[in-house]
């Protein structure tokens, strides 16, 4: 029996392309960048990064205007037969990933200019990854989730190995490829089990479309102890935890972060982590809502271990990119703390999003400074390389301090408010042990972040010696272009502003 054509017409009528206009615009931009590479004369190719950034800026403005004007007309509705669901979290995610995309393109244009690397592929990959991240955050169907995740993953493999002359970059690419492919396989196995359980027509509340989040949630409410469903859920969550880098699955992070080109490290640290957390929230509020009672303690334990591991491992680290990776693990732990508190304290969802944005601002400020300080041997940057930054470029040192201070959670800066909100939520959710561990984690993190700040600002440069190493002479010059200065000022100013006046949040959220 074949369904009639009218059935298919009705299905096709739900493909509301207008609702994903921002994603389509990004996709078109990605293709346009490739075509422009062919059309533009070689001397004018410097327009490509500008077009990539400007285009994303326009899309961002469009998303913002639509958000302000229409007061979210799509809230809660689904499109594409349940493939996508539009929620306030999804809107925030769109803005988050667009800002990320613009900043990564910006850092990338600086990074590539210093090296003999082809450019257009980089911007194309970043654009496709940005679009896929946006779809990923809004998907409410396991098929869509998996495809968007894989699109991002394939783009990331290539971006991490982008400097193919550099052994570290290629090694990072390989070390991302294998664990990431393995985690995708685990995730897929979980999805298959969930599909098999929820699609069984002999059980109550069997799902019409066993991969749609809503249908799976209804099935789970009716059959909360179906073993296949439970096993599938565990595998799905393990796959997502792999992408975020939560503790039993964090093994790939340091080498990949170190080997990747710095803009890509920033993308991994901010966008990839954000996407994982948003997917986790979507999963916990969607198909796996029934299992909160069992999942919250499990998540709390993972968050504790993650915070402790990330901070302790970062403690002795002198290579800055590994440091950012390991401290990023602990930030993932803090975010997970918020996620674990969501069932008990619903307002913490906003706090998690706020934390993500604050992490974005702080991390990109630090990564931008890293691009300026790092020479051509970018993966091997060490804290010692920053020793004369305060004298050589007070501006960069200031931005670095604000970024690191915000990441550490120092009071006048936004990072403090973000952490405070999460801690209050953990307290209200009665996750006292987790709260205690998190406070210990913050104290440890202050030590290594301030070690970096001390190296950059307070340490007296060694007395000038007759045989000064030539490398030192090379690193003291840090020319900062006007646009970069503007971007850095904006990042730092936002960090300070959100810290001093967090009521801005009310206006935004």
């Amino acid at each position: 029996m074949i369904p009639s054509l009218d059935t298919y017409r009705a299905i096709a009528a739900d493909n509301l392309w207008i609702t994903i206009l921002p994603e389509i615009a990004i996709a078109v931009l990605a293709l346009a960048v490739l075509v422009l590479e062919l059309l533009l004369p070689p001397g004018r190719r410097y327009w490509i990064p500008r077009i990539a950034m400007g285009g994303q800026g326009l899309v961002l403005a469009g998303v913002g205007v639509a958000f302000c004007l229409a007061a979210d007309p799509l809230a809660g509705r689904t499109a594409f037969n349940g493939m996508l669901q539009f929620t306030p979290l999804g809107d925030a995610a769109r803005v988050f990933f667009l800002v990320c995309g613009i900043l990564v393109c910006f850092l990338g244009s600086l990074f590539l200019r210093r090296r003999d690397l082809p450019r257009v592929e980089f911007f194309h990959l970043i654009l496709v990854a940005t679009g896929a991240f946006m779809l990923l955050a809004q998907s409410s169907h396991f098929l869509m989730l998996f495809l968007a995740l894989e699109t991002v993953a394939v783009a990331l493999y290539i971006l991490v190995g982008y400097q193919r002359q550099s052994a570290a970059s290629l090694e990072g690419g390989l070390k991302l490829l294998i664990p990431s492919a393995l985690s995708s396989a685990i995730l897929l196995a979980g999805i298959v089990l969930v599909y098999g359980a929820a699609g069984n027509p002999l059980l109550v509340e069997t799902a019409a479309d066993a991969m749609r989040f809503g249908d799976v949630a209804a099935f789970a409410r009716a059959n909360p102890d179906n073993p296949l469903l439970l096993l599938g859920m565990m595998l799905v969550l393990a796959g997502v935890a792999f992408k975020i880098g939560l503790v039993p699955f964090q093994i790939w992070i340091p080498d990949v972060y170190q080997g990747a080109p710095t803009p890509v490290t920033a993308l991994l640290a901010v966008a990839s982590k954000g996407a994982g957390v948003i997917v986790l929230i979507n999963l916990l509020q969607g198909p796996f809502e029934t299992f909160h009672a069992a999942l919250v303690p499990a998540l709390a334990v993972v968050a504790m271990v993650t915070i402790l591991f990330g901070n302790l491992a970062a403690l002795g680290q002198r290579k800055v990119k590994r440091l950012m990776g390991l401290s990023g693990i602990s930030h993932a732990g803090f975010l997970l703390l918020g996620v674990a508190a969501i069932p008990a304290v619903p307002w913490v969802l906003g706090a998690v999003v706020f934390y993500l944005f604050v992490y974005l601002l702080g991390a990109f400020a630090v990564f931008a400074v890293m691009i300026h300080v790092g020479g051509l041997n970018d993966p091997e940057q060490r804290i010692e390389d920053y020793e004369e930054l305060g004298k050589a470029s007070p501006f960069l040192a200031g931005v670095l301090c604000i970024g690191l201070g915000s990441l550490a959670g120092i009071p006048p800066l936004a990072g403090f408010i973000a952490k405070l909100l999460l801690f209050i939520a953990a307290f209200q959710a009665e996750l006292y042990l987790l709260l205690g561990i998190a406070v210990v984690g913050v104290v440890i993190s202050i030590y290594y972040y301030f070690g970096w700040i001390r190296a950059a600002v307070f340490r007296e440069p060694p007395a000038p010696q007759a045989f000064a190493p030539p490398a030192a002479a090379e690193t003291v010059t840090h020319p900062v272009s006007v646009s970069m200065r503007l971007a850095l000022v904006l990042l730092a100013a936002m960090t300070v502003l959100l810290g001093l006046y967090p009521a801005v949040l009310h206006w935004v959220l």
Partner: protein
Amino acid sequence: MSDILFYAFAAITVFSAFMVVCSRNPVNAALFMIAAFVGAAALFALLEAFFLAAVQVLVYAGAVIVLFLFIIMLLDVERTRALRPGLVSLAASAAALGLLVVGVLWLFAWEGAGPLVDARGSDAPAALARNFGYELFTRYLLPVQVTGFLLLVAMIGVIHISKRPARDTAAEPKGEEANP
């Protein structure tokens, strides 16, 4: 009858998949992969998803494996060295495998995965190519488009990673660096 066939093809698939991982010679691994794909195609056919079975044989067992063999022969991959795993990793793998087996047995032999459906006679959604096409281009149109981008990104990545750096620098004159 169909039960016996299922077990036979399932055994072929699992054994070949195992041999893909274990073969030292990449050509042997690729050939075992063909066997695994054909076994999976037979399983699809047993489920009456004939179109899927045909596609599996044509695309995977045919085209994809031919590409694999081409690449293996072009790269002239040598036999890989025998790796001797350490005692710890051997024990850990054995423990993980044991846990997996116990878990699967627990799941299906004791706990049970719920009632099983007798699906014979009902229509598989992808039994006919026409059905398949309709589903793909109505209900799953957005995923199809996303897949297009996935493949595009993969293709561009392969081109970028495999491009020779020497030609790069020659093709891109320093004039491009004059970014104001």
